[in-house]
């Protein structure tokens, strides 16, 4: 089974003065989360769609789905965790409990705030996760990446042509992901911010899927303006 887990766990603390988590902000006629969900719900290979959101926002999310989701579409809303790893673990636990833990499911994980994900990116994630066990959606870095160990001085400048920027989806064979997560030490888990890193830390291959520059993550008010501009929407007065 191919399952998409839409990660809407962020509290939205970087989103200026908006009190609402950013995935719930409107973009055009509906909240950002709904745009993202539709991309997965309409993809013919995706069989189940889960949304993992902060516990306090579960009922709100369900209300939004009832209001905006077109007839005949189903989404399961689950509580996310404290960290991205915890959220991922909750998704895996749900998959085990409801779709069979022994089955070789493909799990696509995607940021709720990336509504511009394309059909091609989803298709290639599914194919790549099946073939390689794990994949990450990336675009070539256009800016030079600078590494600094102490935040003051540059410790190295990696060669740009070898640098890529990570997007989502990140997709996995669920069994493989589960087994690698179970091996994580507490100190490793504490610093892990990226699911694909769980694979690379253990020397497991992660394939790259070509992303798109437009597959932006709506994190800051600026990003929301970009998203509105991409859709040709009028900017709301006072959007700043």
């Amino acid at each position, binding site marked *: 089974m191919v399952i998409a887990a839409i990660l809407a766990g962020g509290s939205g603390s970087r989103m200026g003065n908006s009190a609402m988590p950013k995935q719930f902000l409107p973009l055009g*006629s509906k909240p950002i989360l709904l*745009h993202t969900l539709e*991309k997965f719900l309409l993809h013919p290979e995706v069989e189940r769609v889960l949304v993992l959101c902060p516990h306090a926002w579960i009922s709100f999310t369900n209300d939004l789905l009832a209001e905006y989701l077109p*007839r005949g579409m189903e989404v399961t809303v689950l509580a996310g965790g404290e960290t991205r790893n915890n959220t991922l673990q909750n998704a895996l636990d749900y998959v085990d409990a409801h779709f069979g833990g022994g089955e070789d499911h493909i799990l696509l994980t995607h940021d709720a705030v990336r509504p*511009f994900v394309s059909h091609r990116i989803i298709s290639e994630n599914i194919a790549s996760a099946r073939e390689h066990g794990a994949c990450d959606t990336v675009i070539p870095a256009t800016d030079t990446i600078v590494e600094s160990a102490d935040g003051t001085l540059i410790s190295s400048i990696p060669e740009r042509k070898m640098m890529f920027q990570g997007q989502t989806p990140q997709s996995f064979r669920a069994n493989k992901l589960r087994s690698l997560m179970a091996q994580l030490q507490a100190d490793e888990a504490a610093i892990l911010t990226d699911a694909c890193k769980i694979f690379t830390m253990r020397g497991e291959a992660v394939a790259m899927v070509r992303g798109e520059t437009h597959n932006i993550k709506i994190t800051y008010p600026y990003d929301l303006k970009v998203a509105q501009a991409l859709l040709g929407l009028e900017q709301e007065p006072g959007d700043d």
Partner: protein
Amino acid sequence: MIDVIYRLTAPGRFEIAYEELPLCEDQVLLRPRWLSICKADQRYYQGNRSPEALKAKLPMALVHECAAEVVRDPTGRFARGALVAICPNLPVQTDEFIAENYLFSSRFRSSGADGFLQEYVLSAPDRLIPVPQNTSPEICAFLELISVAMHSISRFERFSHRRRERLAVWGDGSLGYITALLLRTLYPQARLTVLGTVEEKLSYFSFAEERLDVRRVRLVEKESLCDHAFECVGGAGCRNAINQMIEAVAPEGTLALLGVSENFVDINTRMVLEKGLRLFGSSRSGVADFARAAAVLEQNPILGQYLERLVSRVLPVRSIEDLHHAFLLDGQQSFGKTILRWEM
């Protein structure tokens, strides 16, 4: 949902645009799967339209020949995953006498409205035609072109007298091939002549009794070559073609004009008058023409073999670079259709 649209913004330049598609309960959501490039698309891509036309039409998503997969049909008429052809004509009214493709109020995808170079497409269910089960998706990609040929034949049947023993098609390109093939199928007793200028292309028309290179044959000597004729030449060549037809068609015959020309065309009206010829225009098609074309394909499985010869290449498209590659290759070929396996 957010749809990704690949629009031509200037000759040779595609750009990505986004639009929110409302998932309405009376519209079918489709995913274009198999597309086919038409000469009209190439005219935009290569900039062979007037500056005024380019300014008026662009930016616009090209391609109006498409077989698409049904993603969501709230009306319940089509199963999810079903392959359908989409009629690119978008009428907003009906008329007792004027067909949907001749109404000035109608819009047309890839000429005034976005074509099918999109991630998803919304369509009213009455614009969708189930593709024939016995026909490959590569051929279904250009069911629109087949329906254009079918439309001209349906009009010919309305306008022409019933002596249809000798039929002729001018034009050795894809539209000429399809029109001739349909005439062969619908009028098996008629003597079919195809006239062109490239011997190699004419050799593809193996189903016609006679294949004539107009540069080598003196048509005046062949007076009354046919009872009725179809012009599928267009462009700069259609002046010669139409005047040859006027000479070669028997009195009271019918001339169907299908080829698009950017210029005015001088024709021998004296002989049109003397012979009492009927010239009629035929452009694009409507849903009924799609349905008739699909039915003829379904009833005549051998057509699939003949139409397969028209498929010159099938190219997967996963990026804008792939799209340029497809248009450039298509622009270099003299015969056949370039099919896009759309994976964007």
